[in-house]
């Protein structure tokens, strides 16, 4: 653990990312304290520029507090990012583990299925899914999970393929342990580091996806979210630039911080590969 932290710390960007992320997490927790009212509540005169009439980041077309909206929206973004990534990991790891461990025809079938989901335009698919199953936090989480699992499957499968013929796995097989036990206790723990790196990037992508969906009006109608705020500021951008600009900065900082942390995790967990990575994952 100390070794891990030492390597992580060496990447300055990752440390900055972690600090930003801590601040964002704090905002999510403290939002009800800092702004002890609903973000939908009208608090004063509409279209007030930042700093005026008691609005730190200005007010929107209905006199709602933009700063309060951003603070309350933090929780929604982090929640959607986290839960949908967890769901995508569950699908991706299961399929990848089965494909990599079973090999042969099962592997073929699963990989075709994965390729199919990687080929079809994922954002359009997410839009269609959320629209047909009516926008709500659960349909958004499910849609994001459905479009983000394929890279996990590919990574897990590759790890399993290389690990399954290793001696410690063969030893476990000779000892007569069940397949499930071997997958869960022998192979999976050894395949964790690329999964951890990938999942920090997936949370970032999920937050971007959620913001894009709610920008199009497919957000949960009961929850304030950054994408919704940008979407509602779009048509009045000539009048009130702050309505769209500040929530965008919130998304940018969150996603950037997650990406930086992801690179730091990569450096810390795969020291051999770290310096060779030039490409960003899809």
């Amino acid at each position, binding site marked *: 653990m100390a070794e891990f932290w030492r390597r992580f710390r060496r990447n300055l960007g990752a440390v900055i990312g972690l600090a930003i992320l801590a601040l964002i997490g704090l905002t999510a927790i403290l939002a009800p304290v800092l702004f002890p009212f609903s973000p939908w509540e009208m608090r004063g005169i509409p279209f007030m520029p930042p700093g005026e009439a008691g609005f730190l980041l200005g007010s929107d077309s209905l006199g709602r507090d933009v700063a309060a909206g951003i603070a309350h929206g933090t929780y929604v973004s982090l929640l959607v990012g986290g839960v949908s990534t967890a769901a995508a990991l569950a699908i991706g790891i299961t399929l990848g583990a089965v494909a990599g461990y079973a090999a042969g025809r099962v592997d073929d079938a699963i990989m075709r299925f994965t390729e199919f989901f990687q080929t079809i*335009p994922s954002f359009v698919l997410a839009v269609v899914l959320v629209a*047909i199953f009516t926008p709500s936090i659960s349909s958004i989480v499910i849609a994001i999970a459905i479009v983000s699992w394929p890279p996990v499957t590919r990574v897990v499968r590759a790890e399993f393929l290389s690990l399954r013929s290793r001696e410690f796995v063969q030893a476990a097989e000779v000892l007569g342990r069940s397949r499930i036990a071997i997958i869960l206790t022998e192979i999976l723990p050894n395949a964790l580091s690329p999964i951890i790196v990938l999942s920090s990037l997936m949370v970032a992508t999920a937050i971007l996806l959620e913001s894009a969906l709610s920008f199009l009006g497919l957000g949960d109608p009961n929850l304030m979210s950054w994408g919704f705020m940008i979407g509602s500021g779009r048509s009045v951008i000539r009048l009130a630039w702050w309505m769209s600009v500040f929530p965008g900065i919130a998304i940018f900082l969150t996603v950037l911080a997650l990406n930086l942390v992801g690179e730091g995790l990569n450096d810390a967990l795969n020291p051999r590969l770290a310096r060779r990575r030039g490409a960003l994952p899809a």
Partner: protein
Amino acid sequence: MGAGALAAFLAQRTVKAAFVILGVVVFQFVLIRLAPGDPASVIAGQSGAADPLFMAQLREQFGLDRPLWEQLLIYLRDILTLDLGFSHRQQRTVASLIGERLPATLLLTGAAFAFALIGGVALGVAASRRVGRPADSAITVIALTFYATPIFWVGLLLVLVFSVWLEWLPSFGMFTVGADLTGLAHALDVAKHLILPALTLGLFFLAIYARLARASMLEVADQDFVRTARAKGVPEGRIVRVHVLRNALLPVITFAGIQAGQLVGGSILVETVFAWPGIGRLAFEALLARDYAVLLGVFFCTAVMVVVFNLVTDLLYAVVDPRVEVA
């Protein structure tokens, strides 16, 4: 590779593409069946004309009284003959709506892709020749920035800066309404309207291609055949262009193919921001009107676009790389 091998390679890719399209159709069929309410209500019920007679007529039209597999076959036959359904909102066939909007989307995505590919490779090559210097670091920072920025927000910022503050470029639509320009003047007008949306859509991919091109340029530059060329006294400029660049382009092309879906998906957001009259804007209007037949039609159309784009990148790959083998 020989002409025969190339043909075999492309034939194999085409078969694969056909299976993807087939999969999309089956997927849509399942989706419509899984949706809350029966297909008639999903497709038309919410379009405001849900009287019982109309619903019964729709159910018969969809053959809902027949067995499931027969319904699937009918659905397949319809879509493969480009009968994408009927928009009861707009009182027109979905295919005609999409056909009308498709050229605008192709123009936008094509322009954005060309800009991203050419700009990205140029920047990547420039960065690879200045490793560690400020210009190189700047490109890495820019790439990281665009990777973290929502594309629709980039669009809004560009509108704010170039249309609202500087008043240089139009922010809305594809041509000046009411100007009735023709010929060259019209083309210039469209080009002016195209700049901001194409930049918005292209910048993200430009950043990615730049990083990819940089990494693969550095990797190829270390290889033996480059050293041999240098030893033979081939001029440095020619080494970069002919020996390094050609090989360094391959991962960029592969990645462009993988990301085709993202390019097409991004165009929905960009068209929404700029009111660009393409299929993305059509999808947005369909969302507002709950016109699911149109939405599914757009989904099918984007899937076809991605598959075709993938075929083109496969072909490009085969042209650029003489070693490509039939997998």
